[in-house]
């Protein structure tokens, strides 16, 4: 399933504040795009907007998948057309088992429902590949999962749903060294067998070292300020972003820190201090 995702001059507001200020890029089948940049500058916003999160309002620009207007599609239609978002914080769905959830998701994009035998074969095979616990199918979706288990579960869903374009938002955070390699190898395995296009947000060179992006983009203050390939990924890993700020005379958005209030002074300590 080859697909081309094209984003042109995308402007996005969140709570009436403009976060993306004109992003354009194109992801073709078989390509791996690394999306980099300091925190709070628009990476996750871009991914969530492509998937259609209702909180993110597109004020200008277009997104198309194989020429079709993605912005006109509902979230589930986007998924059925071949988009997948591996989330930074996957939701827990208590009471719904992984197998019921995935079977329903898989059947939503098929004319004829998958047979139970075929489904369990597919699920068990992929669970083994990702070295997940055997009882996963019967556990509630992400309920009581560790951070690493949740991220692997996202990859499991991707392997089963077989999207055209997958967007992975810090899918490697929360994974230990061995699990990062396992997940990266699984992604490479999918790539080798098909035309999957990927856009990956990650802060870890180790992950990109195994995945080897074909393209790289750096977002600062809602704009792509520099593009390149794996060499750019390596340079940022070695030198950080300061050289970019200096060269381009730009400043990143600094995420707001939560306010800390004093609850007052401990009376006992105050008395001791006075003594």
């Amino acid at each position, binding site marked *: 399933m080859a697909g081309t995702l094209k984003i042109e001059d995308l402007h996005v507001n969140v709570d009436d504040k403009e976060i993306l200020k004109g992003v354009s890029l194109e992801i073709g089948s078989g390509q791996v795009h690394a999306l980099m940049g300091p925190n709070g500058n628009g990476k996750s916003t871009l991914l969530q907007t492509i998937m259609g999160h*209702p909180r993110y309002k597109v004020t200008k620009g277009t997104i198309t998948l194989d020429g079709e207007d993605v912005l006109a599609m*509902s979230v*589930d239609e986007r*998924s059925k057309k071949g988009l997948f978002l591996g*989330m930074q914080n996957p*939701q827990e769905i208590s009471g719904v088992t992984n197998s*019921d*959830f995935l079977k329903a998701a898989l059947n939503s994009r098929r004319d004829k429902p998958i047979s139970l035998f075929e489904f369990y074969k597919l699920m068990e095979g992929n669970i083994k590949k990702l070295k997940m616990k055997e009882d996963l199918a019967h556990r509630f979706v992400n309920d009581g999962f560790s951070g690493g288990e949740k991220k692997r579960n996202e990859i499991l*869903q991707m392997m089963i*749903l077989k999207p055209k374009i997958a967007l992975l938002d810090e899918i490697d955070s929360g994974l230990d060294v061995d699990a990062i390699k396992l997940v990266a190898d699984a992604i490479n395995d999918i790539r080798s067998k098909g035309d999957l296009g990927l856009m990956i947000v990650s802060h870890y060179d180790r992950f990109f070292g195994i995945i080897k992006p074909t393209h790289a983009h750096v977002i600062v203050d809602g704009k792509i300020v520099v593009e390149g390939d794996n060499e750019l990924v390596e340079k940022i890993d070695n030198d950080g972003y300061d050289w970019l700020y200096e060269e381009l005379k730009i400043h990143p958005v600094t995420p707001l820190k939560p306010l800390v209030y004093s609850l007052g002074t401990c009376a006992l300590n105050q008395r001791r201090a006075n003594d």
Partner: protein
Amino acid sequence: MTESFKSVDINDRELLLKKDQTITIRIDSDLNIKYRIKDADVKIVYIVDTEKAINFHEQGEISGGRLQILFYDLTPSLLHQRSLFKNKKGELSLTTKYLVRSKKDVVIECVNEKSNTIVNIDNSCVILDDGDLLLECTGKILKGAKQSSSHQKSRSLVYGSPQRVKIDPVLLIEESDVEASHALSSGTIDEDVLYYMNSRGLSKDASLKLLINSYLLPNDDALESIEDKEAILKRLMERVDDL
């Protein structure tokens, strides 16, 4: 509902159940039933599945053994339920599931009358548009019922508007050497959960049905050994699909 159900009139009857058995009761008209379990392991599955308003009165007594009750209310119409259980010796496990699309008025009382008796109650409710549920669930441990336990938990999923739900979990404890607890959770469907499900290709309707089923479908163990298991599950799914 299905041909596999046998039609037996048990209204206004008092039953003595002395053998291990599983009984499935389809309630399609008013029912007043009394029974006593004596040294037996009995499972009763109730299914309220009719378009008519239902008055259901039940009195159960356990005099040795184990009584396991699974109560499924799938009816879109009114329900007036009074269930009273007296546990003199043994264990009571009560699981109820309510799909609420109209007025439901439910009072459940489980009494530990003697020592070493066990009561576990698990209520799940899905409240839909125009649903109106009043559920009073009381666990009572009488004086002298030492080392008894009474635990209850209730959860409700509220969807649509307008809707009303009032669940009162009550514990009345007259003895000190006992274990007792109650838990209640009530919430609406989380928009982020819905988005997550949509992002995997499930439409809003399909997502809601999956979430509703998660509240209403019994776990595998609960329906184990029930002859009409498949018919019950099928009917549950049909009722949710009809929404």
